[in-house]
């Protein structure tokens, strides 16, 4: 038996080489993976260099600030207007900003995810509220609409199509050429024989793909051993997805119809699972958890602002009651206290409205997470974005961190401003710095990997049951 199977494998391999399938696969996969990785790399490099040049600008400004502070502290007059003087803590808090950046994850090359929509650094200042920061990136919306030709696109969209082209006629061709009848006269089950054939092709394709991914990703500077667990999850997901489409192709072949019919069926499944289900899920998420009107928000914000400014005087009293440590210092400015008291009120009134957006988005995301099991394409997409650190959650997490940092930043200067203190050169190194915390646990990917393989096993089981019943019809169709 063992001999027989090795014979089948060798025959299969030789015929694949003869039909130029092997050469074609290597060529097309190399081209696709290479192009996708290059695109991903370009995006990541751009992101890094944007952040770096922002850091450099800050460092430059800091060094000018230090020179100015030096001169001021030494008693020289400097030729700078009052509102640019770095010895004023409010000037520091407004103009000498820190970069709150979100550097790319190690494997960010894999999936563009939401990284083309959102910006990767902001500089929160003392006056503005974090919700006023604009996190969307300046970009040509046509590009956002078409999306990026990244590795995630190649693996989720194109790989199944390669599998379909490679195996839509894996059985039907043999029948159409009359080989199947010959095979069936031998003591080997058609299902088993088909499995061997498919397995051979699957192993071949996986081998080529994994080799290519390892070589090209390493070449692009992604260290696959750095976060071995992630690399492993990524590989398993890809291989599981590949297996899913192979098994589906075999199942469709088992229906015993013509090659062309098989192709139609397979392409139908592809459209359903890769195109229609994801977009329907998105649309359902939007209608189940609709985000309130942003246009309405704009006007609400204005009303709250106007209301808060009217009440500024009485607000101050409340504010100082809440912050007794800030009251009654000589040289402190009542104007500032009034301003920040107003800001606090605006924030407390507008926060619930803004939270509504985050809550709705989170509800959408939770719903999408729950329903993702209906299509392997959804499983892969959510995992790839998670592994790349470009998922909606990552950006939400980042916004959260910036929001916290902006409070830290403001609170660093407030007491100084209220007490009328000067900012000195010694205080420079003590300025708060933003450090992006990568979310530690990634929640979906391991489950997703299992889910993909469960998909495969269920399909395989179906196939086994089916083939037991319909051996004869396969031959005679």
């Amino acid at each position, binding site marked *: 038996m063992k001999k027989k199977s090795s014979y089948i494998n060798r025959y299969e391999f030789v015929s694949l080489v003869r039909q130029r399938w092997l050469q074609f696969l290597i060529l097309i996969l190399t081209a696709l993976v290479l192009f996708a990785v290059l695109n991903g790399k370009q995006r990541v490099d751009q992101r890094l260099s944007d952040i770096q040049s922002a850091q450099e600008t800050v460092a430059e400004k800091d060094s000018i600030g230090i020179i100015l502070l030096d001169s001021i502290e030494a008693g020289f007059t400097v030729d700078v207007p009052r509102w640019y003087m770095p010895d004023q803590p409010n000037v520091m808090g407004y103009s000498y900003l820190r970069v709150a950046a979100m550097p790319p994850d190690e494997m960010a090359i894999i999936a563009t995810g939401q990284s083309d*929509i959102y*910006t990767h650094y902001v500089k929160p200042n003392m006056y503005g509220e974090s919700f006023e920061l604009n996190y969307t*990136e300046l970009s*040509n*919306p046509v590009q956002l609409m078409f999306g990026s030709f990244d590795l995630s696109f190649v693996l989720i969209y194109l790989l199944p*199509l390669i599998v379909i082209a490679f195996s839509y006629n894996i059985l039907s061709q043999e029948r159409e050429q009359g080989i199947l009848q010959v095979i069936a006269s031998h003591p080997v089950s058609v299902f088993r024989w088909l499995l061997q054939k498919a397995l051979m092709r699957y192993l071949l394709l996986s081998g080529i793909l994994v080799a290519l991914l390892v070589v090209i990703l390493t070449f692009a500077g992604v260290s696959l051993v750095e976060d071995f667990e992630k690399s492993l999850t990524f590989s398993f997901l890809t291989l599981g997805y590949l297996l899913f489409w192979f098994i589906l192709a075999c199942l469709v072949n088992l229906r015993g119809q013509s090659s062309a019919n098989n192709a139609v069926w397979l392409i139908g499944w592809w459209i359903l699972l890769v195109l229609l289900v994801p977009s*329907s899920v998105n649309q359902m998420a939007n209608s189940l958890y609709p985000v309130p009107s942003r246009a309405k928000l*704009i006007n609400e914000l204005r009303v709250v602002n106007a209301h808060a400014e009217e009440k500024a005087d009485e607000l101050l009293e409340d504010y100082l009651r809440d912050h007794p440590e800030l009251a009654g210092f000589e040289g402190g400015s009542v104007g500032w206290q009034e301003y920040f008291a107003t800001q606090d009120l605006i924030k407390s009134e507008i926060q619930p409205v803004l939270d509504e957006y985050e809550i709705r988005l989170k509800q959408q995301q939770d719903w999408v997470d729950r329903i993702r099991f209906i299509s392997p394409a959804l499983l892969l997409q959510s995992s790839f974005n998670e592994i790349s650190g470009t998922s909606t959650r990552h950006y939400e997490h980042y916004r959260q961190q910036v929001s916290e940092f902006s409070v830290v930043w403001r609170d660093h200067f407030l007491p100084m401003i209220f007490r009328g203190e000067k900012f000195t050169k010694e205080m420079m190194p003590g300025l708060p710095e933003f450090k992006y915390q990568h979310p530690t646990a990634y929640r979906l990917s391991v489950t997703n990997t299992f889910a993909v393989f469960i998909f495969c096993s269920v399909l395989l089981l179906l196939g086994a049951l089916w083939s037991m019943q319909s051996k004869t019809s396969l031959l005679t169709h």
Partner: protein
Amino acid sequence: MIRRIAFKEMKENLYEGRFRVTIIIVSVLLIMATWLSLNYFKSVQQQHADAKANARNIWESQDEKNPHSAAHYGTYAFKPKYPLSLIDPGVDKFSGISIFLEAHKRNEAQYMAAADQTGLARFGDLTPDFIMLFIIPLLIILIGYNAFTREQELGTLKLLKGQGISSWKLALGKWVGIFLPVLILTTGLFVIAFILLVNVEDFGELNYGVLLLMFVVYVIYYAVFINITLMVSAVSKQSGISLVSLLVIWIVVCLAMPKASSNLADSIYPYPSRQAFAADIDKDKKAGLDGHNPWSQAAKDFERETLEKYGVDSLSQLPFNFDGYRMQKGEEHEAQVYFKHYAELKNTFRNQSKVYQAAAIASPFLPTRFLSMALARTDYRAHWDFSDAAESYRLSLVDTLNMNLAVNSTYGDWAYKADRSLWKNVPDFEYDPPSLGDIIGRNWSNILVLGLWFLVSFVGLKILTQRV
């Protein structure tokens, strides 16, 4: 003869379960997509109308205040939603919905809908344009992939030839046989869209000509796909191979090329990051006159020039409030800075568009995609148009307010407050979308390329079917 072949082709298709099932599925999808879009369109339009009225109300109900303070307070311009976005929402989801208009600053449109959605939004939406651009070409492939291969496999091709029919007539017959069902489907969709649009309350200036033109664009797109399908079917030896080759073409044309060209466009002509763009503008702004900073060198120079121009010795002798005048001149300098930087950005956008236009030579999907959204006024150009209109409104608004300050108060008088009637007298922001003539003028390259695809693919069909 052609008619008879077409008729036979359609009858054969009709008997085939595959054809019926796919037609039904596509029709159901189209109806679903239109229904979803209609709901979305109605709600967005309502939101827009409310917000616009509200913003104006807030603007008009300002208290008496310094006109320049009112300019800082500002107002909002909301981007209108056009009726044809029902068929093709274009880039609407990825461009902001409103622009804050205030003194000293040109703001970008904010709140793109995609940012309020999960990552799945990137898979696309179930809208009529999605069905028309992606799924109907697939339908064409499914109907026609075996137009010739089937005849070959069954041996009927020889029989046909024996009857003395020319290959070209056979091809034309088959062409019509595929074209008619697709035409009926497309016409149906446009008729439904038309009925819905006429009944949508406040549907704006729906230009029926535009709808018709859009219909023509899609029909040409489908004709190109029919040509490609028949060509491949004519040269393929087996139905299976024909189908798989056509699928590969479909993927390249509809999925891979748009993405690849967008990566290319971005790598050759990259957009600046939002922060870098803002920082560059700030730098240029600081180099010139700042209306709020009378102590800068630029302000001192301006002061001197103004005094010389009016032949007076001091600012208080001027016939207007110099503060307001300087504020306005500062605004003009800033407007120029914005103009320069936005012109650069627009230039980058134009260059990127050229990359897409070049890629259109390899994909009939691209010119159709761009033409469709241009006609629906949901393309990036329309967004630019809106943004430019909002900017010129902002400048005239700020100019009115600053000059009111300059004319009605004296130098050093910061207590001046304008009457509340001023807010009412400032005209509201009204925006007229680009006319059909403008749209055609800007898209001649897409029209040309799509036309070329149509002609070349027909010629190709004639040449290739000769061998059958």
